[in-house]
């Protein structure tokens, strides 16, 4: 397998693992970790899209770099996506903390105020 193929497969596996743990875990912190793993998979996928074999870092220099460069756009997207993921995780953990204060548990099976 070539490098991008390995990366695509691992991105797909990461997304699957993340979604699986999101669906099967009852501990809310673990659910959020699952979400983070899936997020990681998507980020890996985006970086892989811009991957060029033997490409150099896309930095502007006075003399043009020899050889191909990797696509900088997906890397910029991934930076944004990481920041958004960080924000969402922080908010989710805050909510879990407040739920723990009000319900005394972080197990979704024990929190049954609404229908899940």
């Amino acid at each position, binding site marked *: 397998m070539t490098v991008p193929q390995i990366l695509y497969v691992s991105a797909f596996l990461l997304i699957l693992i993340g979604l699986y743990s999101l669906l099967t875990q009852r501990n809310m912190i673990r659910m959020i970790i699952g*979400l983070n793993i899936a997020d990681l998979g998507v980020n890996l996928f985006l970086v892989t899209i811009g991957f060029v074999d033997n490409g150099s870092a896309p930095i502007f220099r006075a003399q043009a770099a020899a050889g191909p460069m990797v696509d900088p756009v997906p890397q910029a997207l991934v930076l944004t996506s990481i920041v*958004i993921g960080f924000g969402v995780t922080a908010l989710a953990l805050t909510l879990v903390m407040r739920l723990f204060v009000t319900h005394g548990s972080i197990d979704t099976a024990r929190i049954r105020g609404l229908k899940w």
Partner: protein
Amino acid sequence: MVSPILFIVVPLAAAFLTVLVNRNAGARILALLTGFALSALAWFWFRADLSTPVSVVIAGIAPPMGIQLSMDRLSAALALLISVSGFLVILYSQSYLKSEEAQSKHYAVLLLLMAASFGILLTRDLFNLFVFYEILCISSYILVASEETKASFEASLKYLLLGSVGSLFMLVAIGLAYRVSGSLAMSDIAQALGEADLSYVMLTAALFVLGMGIEAAIFPVNTWLPDAHSTAPSSISAVLSGFVIELALIVLLRISMTVFSSVNLMLPLRYMALAGILIGELAAFGQTELKRTLAYSSMGQVGLMLFALTLGTEAGRQAGMAHLVMHTGAKSILFLIAGYFIVRTGKRDIKSYSGLGRRMPLTGVFFVIGALSLVGVPPLFGFFTKFKILSAAAVSGATGAWLGIAVILLGTVLEASYLFRVVRTLYSDPETGNTRAVKGRMEMDVPALIAVFGFTLLVIFGSFLLPLIPSGLAL
């Protein structure tokens, strides 16, 4: 010429200013002024000649590298709807929010939500759409939790988990689209996907529709809606049910019709819409809490709009857009009044509201008008929009159109029965034991009354707006 970018800059700047001011009175006035300014701006754009869309390029970098915003007639009309209902909701919040709360944060997040709404409406860059979509989602999560009750934290977390999965899917779809087009501008992607392998486009489109569909509350991914919309503060329920889900729906449809035009998404979406109507209305019928009933009814109404918009005819799109405007008015009235019912009685279930209609005469009248319009009783706006949807479906000849008509009529019957049940309770004699010591009037406060009156005007005279409502879903 006023630039459309002001729609994003003004509420964003106001949101940060509101946090800086950090005083309740200052924040309230600032939010109110921002809402008014946005409405004036939207009115200007609504009146402007937009037969050719006006586009701006951000920071002087031309697409495909830069981000393009574009204002067409549809965007202008929706921007007017968002800004006016945002303004009215801010007005309502002046008296609805408890004065001991930290109101500046609440207004700041509400303004952020409005900025993101304008953003997803105007942007023509797929990744920029994702960023605004995330801002919209995150500010909705915060607003849903802002009442800080047990149920609201739970609803917010549930919404957050589903929403994040949705945005994951959307990001993968954007990645797939970028992979074939090498650009993030919607027009380039549309062109590249037109030549791409059909199954590849189908995968991309399915991931995108699933992701965006979560915010638009399309049938299989709308389980967060009843919890989130019923536990949020009522002003926020009115915003979320009033324009956020509708806006997501329109953006979703615009993208699936233009960017993913090579696959036919209309048929599956139409059946999803019908399932949404059935499930939403049936579930609403079985609820005992007023706000939960209204939330489920929103689920059904979104299905109704989606059905009309996916008929594939001009008349269908027009009817769907008109129904969207009507729903914003009617559902906002009902949610805003439900908020005051909760404030005045301290209870959420319908049966404890018996006799309230007589003690809040004006409010009761507004509630009845909103309910009648939602059901579709003749002189009101709701009748015209529902009639237009049915007639558009009858002449469209689309697959499932007649099934759709049957489902819509069944939904209307259910809707009428549960809404009239509420109305009957409002005007029934209070049961013994349920009577409270408080006697006499307990009308809503003046700002709330004015806000609800504004929405009522829309619902009564909306039928005169019908020729002004655009229907073109172009890039």
